[in-house]
C-alpha cells in the first residue's frame, strides 16, 4: 500500500521533469534548414547521377566506349556506343545514355571503368513530372558545374 501511495507523488515529479526538458528545448534555436530558400552543401562523396569526365588536356571525354560499365550495372541502365575516329589509337564515345529511373546509385559502373571516365555528379534537385525526362544523354547534359547548384 505504501509503495503505491508513494508512487503518485513520484509519478507526478517524473511528469514535471519531463515538462522541464521540453521547456528547455522550447528556448533552444531551431535546427530546420528552410529548403527552398536555404540549401545544404553536398559532401564530397555525394552520389548524384553519373556524369562523364572531360579530359583537361584535350577537352574531350575520357570515355573510350569499352562498355565495361554497361556490363557491370546491376539494373542495366547504361547504353554506350563508340566509334574509332581516324588517326586515333583508342575509340571515343559517341553516345552515352543513362536511364536514371532504374539507377540505384551503387557505383559499380564507376569501379568497373578502366579509364576513370565517369563519376557521381552533385545533382539532387531533379524532380520532374514525366518519366522519360530521366533518360539522360550524358553527352548533351551540360558540364558538371553549370546547371547543378
Amino acid at each position, binding site marked *: 500500500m505504501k509503495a503505491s501511495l508513494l508512487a*503518485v507523488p513520484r509519478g*507526478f515529479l517524473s*511528469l514535471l521533469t*519531463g*515538462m522541464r*526538458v*521540453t*521547456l528547455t*528545448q*522550447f528556448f*533552444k*534555436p*531551431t*535546427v*530546420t534548414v*528552410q529548403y527552398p530558400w536555404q540549401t545544404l552543401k553536398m559532401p564530397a562523396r555525394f552520389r548524384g547521377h553519373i556524369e562523364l569526365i572531360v579530359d583537361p588536356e584535350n577537352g574531350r571525354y575520357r570515355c573510350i566506349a569499352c562498355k565495361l560499365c554497361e556490363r557491370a550495372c546491376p539494373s542495366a541502365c547504361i547504353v554506350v556506343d563508340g566509334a574509332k575516329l581516324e588517326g586515333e589509337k583508342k575509340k571515343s564515345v559517341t553516345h552515352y545514355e543513362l536511364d536514371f529511373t532504374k539507377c540505384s546509385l551503387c557505383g559499380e559502373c564507376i569501379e568497373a571503368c578502366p579509364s576513370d571516365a565517369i563519376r557521381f555528379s552533385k545533382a539532387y534537385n531533379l524532380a520532374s513530372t514525366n518519366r522519360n525526362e530521366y533518360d539522360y544523354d550524358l553527352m548533351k547534359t551540360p558540364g558538371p558545374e553549370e546547371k547543378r547548384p
Partner: protein
Amino acid sequence: MSFLLTEPFRLLLSILCIVAFVGGNAAYLVLAERKGAGRFQNRPGPNEAGFGGWLQPIADVGKLISKQLMVPPEADQLLFRLAPLVVLTPAMMCLAVIPFGDTVVARNINVGLLMVFSFGSINVMAILLSGWASRNKFAIMSAARVVSQNVAYEIPMLLVVITLLMATGTMDLSEIVRQQAGGFWHWNFCRVWINPLMPVTFVIFFICMLAETNRAPFDMAEAESELVAGAFTEYGSMGFGVFFMAEYANIVLGCSLATVLFFGGWQTGLGAVPAAWGGWGVLVGLGFFMAKLYALIFTVIWVRWTFPRTQFYILLNLSWKILIPVSLFTLLLSSAMIKLLPR
C-alpha cells in the same frame, strides 16, 4: 445614439464579441499550438503563409471551407448534421457567464458556475452523437471511450468545485473574482487556510479539464494510432473544422474558468487598481485576465507536446482510484476547517 446604451444592443454586442472571441481564438490557437509544438521540437512551425506564418489560420479556414462536406450514405442523416452544432453552441453559451473584466461580462447571473457545468456536459453527448451517427467502426469505439472518459472525470471536477464553493459561498463568478481582490495571496489558489491542499485541488481541476476536452495525454478519442481520427473520421471539410473549433472553445472555457476560480480572474495580483483610472482600470483587469488565460493555455499546449497518451484503463483508474478519493478528502478537510477555524 441613446439606443446604444439600451439592453438589447448590449446583448447583441456581447453575443458578437463572444462569437468573435471564440472564432478568433479557435483560428489563432491552432496557429499558437502549431508554433508552440514547433518550438518545443526545435523547429519553427508554420512560417510560409504571411510573415512568420500569421496568415496560416486564414489559409486553413479557406482550405476547410472549399472542401466538399460529404455525408456518408449509411450515416444517420439528421444526427450527422446535428452533431457539429451541438458540440459548439454549449461552449459559446458558457462564455457568456465568464467575467472577463470588472464590468466586461456578457450576462452576470448569480448561478454562473452551475450554468457552465450544466452546458459543459452537453459536449460529451455531442461527440457521442457524431460517433454514433457516422456508422463507422472506429467512430463508435472512440465515442464509447469519450463517454466513459468524461463521466469518469466529471465527478472529481465537481467535487473540487464544491470544495471551492464552500470557501467562496457564492456561485456568481463575478462575486468570486471580487472576493479575490488584494494581493495574489488572496487568490483562491493560495488560500491555504481554507484548505491546505488548494494547489492540489487546482492540479486535479486542471487534469480533469484536460480529460474533459479530450486533450493529450488523455486524447483517447482521436488516438491516431488506433482509431484513425476517432469520432470525426467521417467528417469532411467544415464539419471537421467545427469540431476543431469546439475543441479550442472548450479549452478556452476550461482555462478561463480555472483563471476565474483559482487565479483571481481580472484581479491584478499587486493590490487593487486605483479608482482614478476608471475605464482604463477595467482594461488593465481585462489584460491581466487574458495574460493568465493564455498562460494556462500555453500549459495545455506544453502538456500535449510532452507526454505520450495514457492507456484507457489507466485513465479510468487514475480518476476512480486517485482523483476522486483525493478530492473527497479535500472536500471533507476544507468543510472541517471552515467549520472549526473562525473565518
